[in-house]
């Protein structure tokens, strides 16, 4: 019997089909939900993109990394710097386009991943975890050290070129300022045009700070600085933070940007909705990365990574270079992280050390451990969890009238305890437990017959 799935190209087509169905469904959903939900969708997709890499690195290749938030920073900064400074593609001289920035961000991730992977591949568990912890703290510190390039503690503001395509921004968007935003020093950037109450359009600002909580929208008014739950560093608090809502409509945009999603998805009553565009960008990136990840995980490379994780000696005598396999996992995961970082930069229209601090790295680890570190589905669950759980906790807290300090810290307390519980009771995470559960149920029903 010919197994259709074994035919050459069948894996490509089936994976493409799976990813396309998910993409189409998410785009459809994005079309019908309100802007705040779209914003959450964008964040969840962005987290999932980075965590696909965590599944490969931590789950399959068995290297616990705390540095992937810093690798996202690489992607974010490369995106920001290239799109702020380059009008044309170097050497080739083509017109600049954000896609190019995304590609360069990916290359940046690959380069840094190679270096870290090369050092890390020779190290055992705790040594690697410590090294990547140092990287998670060190890379943002480098950004602060060279303020003339990286904008220092305040970071860099981005003008996210969204497809104009004849759709004017909604009237709620903040007053349009005279100057285009690129390269305007932060102090001169138009700040605070829109009062916070004008959410949801302001949520980008607030959300930028808090890594684990995806969005501190509900508590933004009561405590502007409450955003950074896990971060040691101080993201510029809401007063000083550049307001993203001040997106001028007359920014000189490359004209040849294809709207990533169909124009309809971007429209709500005929107006451009920024969050929908952000969500379509993030979802599309997540699906492309997800496709690559799926091919790797469900193919020979996934087997190779698991082999080295299970038994390095046996893998080596089978002809696999353990170091090579570990480095490749690092490179792939940092490529994914860099793309996620570039998406993150576009969602929050900003890159800064606070947004990519240790907290972000930790949240990626938390997400992938809770979701399930052994399979890509775990990354998706993790992404949703990182966005949804804080909202859930905030809602409960709001109903009960908890004080702000309790509310703000509750999600992280839950995360920390859940991580410990998952490691002790269900190492496979949520997805792993669901799989085990169904397997057990099936076995039971079979034996009942």
């Amino acid at each position, binding site marked *: 019997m010919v197994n259709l799935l074994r035919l050459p190209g069948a894996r490509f087509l089936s994976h493409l089909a799976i990813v396309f169905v998910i993409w189409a469904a998410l785009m459809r959903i994005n079309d019908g939900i309100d802007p705040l939900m779209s914003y959450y969708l964008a964040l969840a997709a962005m987290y999932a993109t980075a965590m696909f890499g965590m599944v490969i690195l931590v789950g399959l290749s068995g290297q616990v990394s705390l540095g992937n938030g810093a690798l996202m920073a690489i992607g974010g900064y490369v995106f920001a710097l290239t799109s702020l400074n380059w009008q044309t593609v170097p050497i080739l001289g083509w017109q600049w386009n954000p896609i190019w920035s995304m590609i360069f961000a990916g290359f940046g991730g690959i380069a840094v991943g190679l270096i870290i992977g090369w050092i890390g591949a020779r190290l055992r568990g705790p040594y690697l*975890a410590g090294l990547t912890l140092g990287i998670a703290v*060190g890379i943002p510190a480098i950004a602060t*050290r060279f303020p003339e390039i990286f904008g220092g503690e305040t970071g860099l503001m981005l003008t996210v070129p969204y497809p104009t395509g004849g759709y004017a921004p909604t009237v709620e968007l903040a007053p349009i300022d005279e100057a285009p935003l690129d390269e305007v020093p932060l102090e001169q950037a138009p700040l605070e045009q829109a009062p916070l109450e004008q959410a949801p359009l302001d949520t980008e600002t607030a959300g930028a700070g808090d890594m684990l909580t995806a969005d501190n929208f509900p508590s933004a008014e009561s405590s502007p600085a409450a955003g950074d739950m896990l971060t*040691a560093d101080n993201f510029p608090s809401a007063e000083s933070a550049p307001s993203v809502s001040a997106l001028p409509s007359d920014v000189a945009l490359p004209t040849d940007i294809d709207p990533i999603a169909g124009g309809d998805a971007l429209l709500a009553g005929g107006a451009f909705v920024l969050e929908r565009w952000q969500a379509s960008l993030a979802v599309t990136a997540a699906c492309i990365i997800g496709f690559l990840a799926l091919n790797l995980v469900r193919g020979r490379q996934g087997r190779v990574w698991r082999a080295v994780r299970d038994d390095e000696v046996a893998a080596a005598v089978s002809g696999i270079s353990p170091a090579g396999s570990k480095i490749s996992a690092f490179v792939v995961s940092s490529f994914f992280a860099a793309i996620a970082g570039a998406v993150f930069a576009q969602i929050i229209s900003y890159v800064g050390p606070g947004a990519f601090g240790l907290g972000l790295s930790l949240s990626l680890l938390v997400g992938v451990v809770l979701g399930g570190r052994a399979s890509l589905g775990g990354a998706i669950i993790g992404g949703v969890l990182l966005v949804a759980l804080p909202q859930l906790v905030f809602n409960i807290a709001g109903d009960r009238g908890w004080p702000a300090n309790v509310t703000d810290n509750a999600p992280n307390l839950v995360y920390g305890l859940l991580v410990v519980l998952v490691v002790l009771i269900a190492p496979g995470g949520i997805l792993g437990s669901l799989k085990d559960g169904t397997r057990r149920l099936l076995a039971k029903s079979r034996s009942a017959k």
Partner: protein
Amino acid sequence: MTTFIDYVLGGLGSGAIIALMALALVLIWRSTRVVNFAQVGQAMFTTFIALSIQTWTGSWYIALIGALAAGAVLGVIVQYLVLRPVKRNDTSGAIIATFGVLIALQAAAGMIWPGGSQAFPQPFNNSGIEFAGRVWPISIYDFVVIGITALLVLGLTLLFTKTSLGLSMRAAAFNPEVAKLSGVRVSRVLTFGWALAGSVGAVAGILVAPVSTISPNSFDILLVYAFTVAVIGGLDSLIGAISIGVFTGLIISLVSGYSDSGNAPVVALLLLALNLILKPEGIFSHHKARSV
């Protein structure tokens, strides 16, 4: 030259504190082969407790004793509830679990002690000592820090070399199976190791708090420094942790002095990376960090 001496003197106190935190990591690594990334979280928590005690009683000494006790208790709790139940072959799990504890402790501290960064009252004079006609960049408080560190190191050395408890700890660390056969109650000894490390970390916390501030995240960078020191010293070497710790304090002080304090973490990271490339098992250890 005098500036150089100033920077060196200025680095002694922070070096001692980093050394203590590294010592706590080493104590646990020796006994359980786990790098306890939650260590600074525990220290932060006990320092908050100490701050509460200090505010309440007004005595730094009672606060210090409180921190020591709380550190031991917290260490035992973490070991009993979290690290002991982790499956033995699940090294990734153990690492992840310690980070889970760190996140939970930081969140809990944020709940219990709201208000962000808080100042810890100065127990001793922390301004430079005047001597021989100039002000030196070292204070009474620095001497207290260095003195307490020296006392702790002396105590630990005596414990490990002169007492039967110390001997059983070394035996249990060296070979738990053999130790068990020769009548050492290994699990009890390991728990004692965690308590000890918890107390040492707590001392590091209460000593660093007056010269910085205390907030749930304020010790994160200390974790990076301490880990760097512990690894460079060779994770299982007490002498390594102390000497490299003091050395790192000096380096940080020199780097901050001659360039900018923002460079210190980057330099520490470079040191760590360099060490891991060249001699991953550390300077003071024969133990292997690389896998076959």
